[in-house]
């Protein structure tokens, strides 16, 4: 294997991929991947779903899915080629010198074992004497700043929150003082405020033990703050690789720029998001892509781009780009414009009013005392036609429940919902009136789709209460799929045959099918990649322009709220703690809870230290 003589003379990097290629059925799923992670540094692998970023972790763990195999290149862990290592020796490295932090903290722990038993198992493998195990466990948990390690040790995973579970997994990963930690989207399923803590802990541990971290993420801003170096992946290739600061301040590859242009900012002037046309090529499409894999979606692509695969060039210090075009080419900077805000008539009757709504859930035990659980505590709000209102808050703040109450799926314990100034009752006529005006896009995209209906029948579901001609449904479905950026051929597929992001777009398409006047969107952007997210957000803005649609956006992503909404409502434990115009709230938050939420957003300015040490 060819390796630089210079790097061979110096201390070898902790992890180095050299022309690593993974194939499946003749298709190069990962093509010519080369990167180096020195000891004690953090390398970010950034990309949207389908870019192949998780595949890298799987190669390291020797856990490629069936049908996938490394066909060329090597992957050095210090001086050992992991691909050539005998399975025994490879397995010995895993969990000792190479540790993993998984994406879904809740499902990564065995629900039948206590946290202490998880540690005991792992420590037994590390040959820690039995008498020391509890001490080591407590110490590792204390490192995670868990309030009371002694209690957590004897608890089961389901008794802990997602953030606590992720801390436990971090502790498990670091207990063997590994040299390399692979963190695959460790905060993707967590609240923003929890994410800050986890990221802070990860960085502390990393600097304390001098660990090298391979951080796999789709969040650009997060990677910019956390990582030393980043590699941007597109369709199984590294398209840009360099020092994090350089890549983020001045992205050179058209795809990196497109990602940046599609990412809503939390500071600075409001600008229109731009999303590159098309979508990430799937496994079947990769085979037919000649030349630059990004060329079909690239605004500056030329004939030459399709001719041959571009090599990684080094146009400046600390950065390599896989693009044949000169970087002097002017970036298509998105235009800075005034935010698109609705003009609402203050005197008109609001489209929707929520009038002092309460909701309590109670346990329904026959013999046990019924415990009341107040989910919504006296919430009032109103939305005008064409107004976009955002609700922010953490898990358990009651924002999803509020959305379901407005939709009418949950009944409020007290209070009224008014549509066009008239209260909505329980009658069938009122239900009709409600669902004609209001639609809800559910948070969990898979659960909201009947697994036995095709996408075509799902997106046109609102039309099917009455008999319809099949061509009419097909035409409407085609328009909706195009609007939401779904390829036309998904129409005949079942939900199990499309990706999570595509499921979410099917849900959005269904919500828009009968063109409601108010759309309640419960975390609709959270499972989407930035370029798809930009497309959906712009679609919503277009629908407001064309149809005066109003939006109640439930989200934890403040940048998305800032992009779309003119008003923000902050919810905490079932109550509205603060509300006002987006600009006012985000510029000068009054309530401490709002301030905490805002401080959890990675700042635009890379020179600011984030997350702040606790």
């Amino acid at each position, binding site marked *: 294997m060819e390796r630089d003589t210079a790097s061979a003379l110096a201390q070898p990097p902790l992890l180095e991929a050299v022309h690593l290629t993974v194939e499946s059925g003749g298709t190069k799923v990962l093509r010519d991947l080369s990167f180096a992670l020195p000891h004690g540094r953090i390398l970010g692998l950034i990309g949207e779903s389908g870019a192949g970023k998780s595949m890298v972790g799987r190669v390291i763990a020797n856990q490629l899915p069936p049908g996938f195999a490394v066909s060329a290149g090597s992957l050095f862990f210090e001086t050992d080629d992991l691909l050539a290592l005998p399975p025994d020796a490879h397995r010995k490295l895993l969990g000792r010198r190479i540790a993993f932090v998984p994406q879904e903290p809740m499902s990564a722990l065995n629900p039948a074992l206590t946290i202490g038993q998880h540690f005991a198992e792992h420590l037994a493998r590390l040959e820690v004497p039995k008498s020391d195990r509890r001490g080591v466990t407590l110490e590792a948990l204390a490192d995670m700043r868990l309030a009371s390690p002694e209690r957590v040790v004897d608890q089961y995973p389901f008794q802990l929150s997602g953030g606590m579970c992720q801390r436990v997994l971090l502790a498990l990963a670091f207990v063997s003082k590994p040299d390399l930690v692979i963190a695959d989207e460790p905060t993707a399923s967590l609240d923003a405020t929890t994410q800050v803590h986890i990221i802070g802990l990860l960085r502390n541990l990393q600097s304390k033990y001098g660990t090298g971290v391979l951080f796999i993420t789709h969040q650009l801003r997060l990677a910019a703050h956390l990582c030393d170096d980043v590699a941007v992946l597109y369709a199984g290739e590294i398209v840009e690789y360099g020092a994090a600061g350089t890549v983020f301040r001045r992205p050179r590859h058209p795809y990196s720029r497109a990602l940046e242009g599609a990412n809503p900012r939390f500071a600075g002037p409001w600008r229109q998001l731009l999303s590159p046309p098309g979508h990430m090529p799937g496994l*079947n499409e990769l085979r037919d892509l000649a030349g630059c894999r990004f060329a079909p979606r690239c605004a500056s692509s030329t004939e030459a781009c399709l001719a041959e695969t571009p090599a990684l060039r080094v146009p400046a210090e600390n950065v390599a780009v896989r693009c044949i075009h000169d970087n002097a080419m002017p970036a298509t900077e998105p235009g800075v414009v005034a935010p698109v805000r609705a003009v609402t008539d203050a005197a008109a009757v609001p489209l929707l009013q929520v009038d002092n709504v309460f909701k309590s859930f109670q346990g329904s035990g026959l013999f046990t005392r019924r415990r009341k659980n107040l989910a919504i505590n006296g919430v009032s709000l109103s939305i005008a036609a064409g107004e976009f209102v955002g609700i922010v808050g953490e898990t358990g703040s009651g924002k999803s429940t509020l959305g379901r109450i407005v939709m009418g799926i949950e009944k409020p314990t007290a209070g009224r919902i008014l549509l066009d100034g008239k209260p909505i009752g329980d009658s069938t006529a009122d239900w009709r009136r409600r*669902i004609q005006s*209001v639609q809800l896009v559910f948070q969990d995209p898979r*659960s909201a789709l*009947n697994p036995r209906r095709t996408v075509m029948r799902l997106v046109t579901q609102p039309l099917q209460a009455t008999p319809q001609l099949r061509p009419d449904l097909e035409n409407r479905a085609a328009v909706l799929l195009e609007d939401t950026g779904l390829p036309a051929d998904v129409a005949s597929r079942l939900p199990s045959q*499309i*990706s999570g992001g595509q499921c979410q777009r099917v849900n959005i398409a269904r919500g828009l099918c009968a063109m409601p006047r108010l759309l309640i969107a419960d975390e609709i952007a959270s499972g989407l990649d930035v370029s798809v997210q930009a497309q959906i957000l712009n679609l919503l803005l277009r629908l407001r322009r064309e149809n005066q649609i109003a939006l109640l956006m439930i989200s934890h992503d403040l940048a998305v709220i800032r992009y779309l909404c003119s008003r923000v409502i902050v919810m905490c434990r079932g109550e509205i703690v603060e509300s006002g115009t987006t600009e006012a709230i985000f510029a000068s938050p009054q309530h401490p809870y709002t301030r905490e939420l805002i401080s959890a957003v990675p700042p635009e300015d890379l020179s600011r230290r984030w997350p702040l040490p606790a």
Partner: protein
Amino acid sequence: MIRKLPKPLDEPRVLIGASALLAIVVVAILAPVLAPHDPNHQDLLQILVPPFWQEGAEAGFPLGTDGLGRCVLSRLIYGARVAVIVGSVVPIGTVLLGTTIAIVAGYFGGKIDWAVSRTVDVWMSFPPVVLSLVLMVGLSPGLRNVILATVLVDWTRFCRVTRGAILGVMKLDYVASARIAGASHVQVMLRDLLPAVFPIIITLFSVEIGIAVVVESVLSFVGVSVSPAIPTWGSMIADGLVTVFQEPWGLAFPVSMIIVTVLGANMLGDGLRVRLDSHHATRLGADL
């Protein structure tokens, strides 16, 4: 409803079970052709003739005769008719009754669900055989009443299992999605709930075939089923029991027919369950 019906015949259990049941159905239909004798014809000179492989067998009676000199083979063949009718009509009845009540209870929940669940609880606490005996005594013998009694006893099994499955489906958002898309309650139940529990219904249906045959045999054995003029496996067991010490085969043949039927039905149900539960289509190249 299920668009991609898997190939259930790949599963050997399905193949064996279905063949066994099909064979019995064919025998029942062709009974007048296949049976060598009138099943009720008594040849009092030829009582307790052993089957053909034993000494003293008669060429005209391949499986011998019973205590009244009736041809065992012919009675087995004609007995399949009642078994087939009961084994096909009873599962349909229990599915219709049990599933309908279960879907309504699971979908509307609240007081309706509570009432249904408690009724099922109480109903199931009666021993099923005793309950059907009591019902038969009240209803007077006859094929129609046998079916009615069995359905009334067995619908609870369907109801309980299906209701549990419906409650699981109700937790998913797609039921609420269908409602806010404008579907009526009936549309939601038929389009979204019924297809979701369809695999369970198929499985329970095939198990119920075996149960129905057994229950009918028990009733025949006691003598409260169809009229004594119609041969059934249950009444053959009763007759065979009287002469079991002189001629054990008169008991063994009908018992083995019941075993074959129940085993076939259970294998079919088991195989279908495996096939229908794992029919999730997978996506190519998911999560690179």
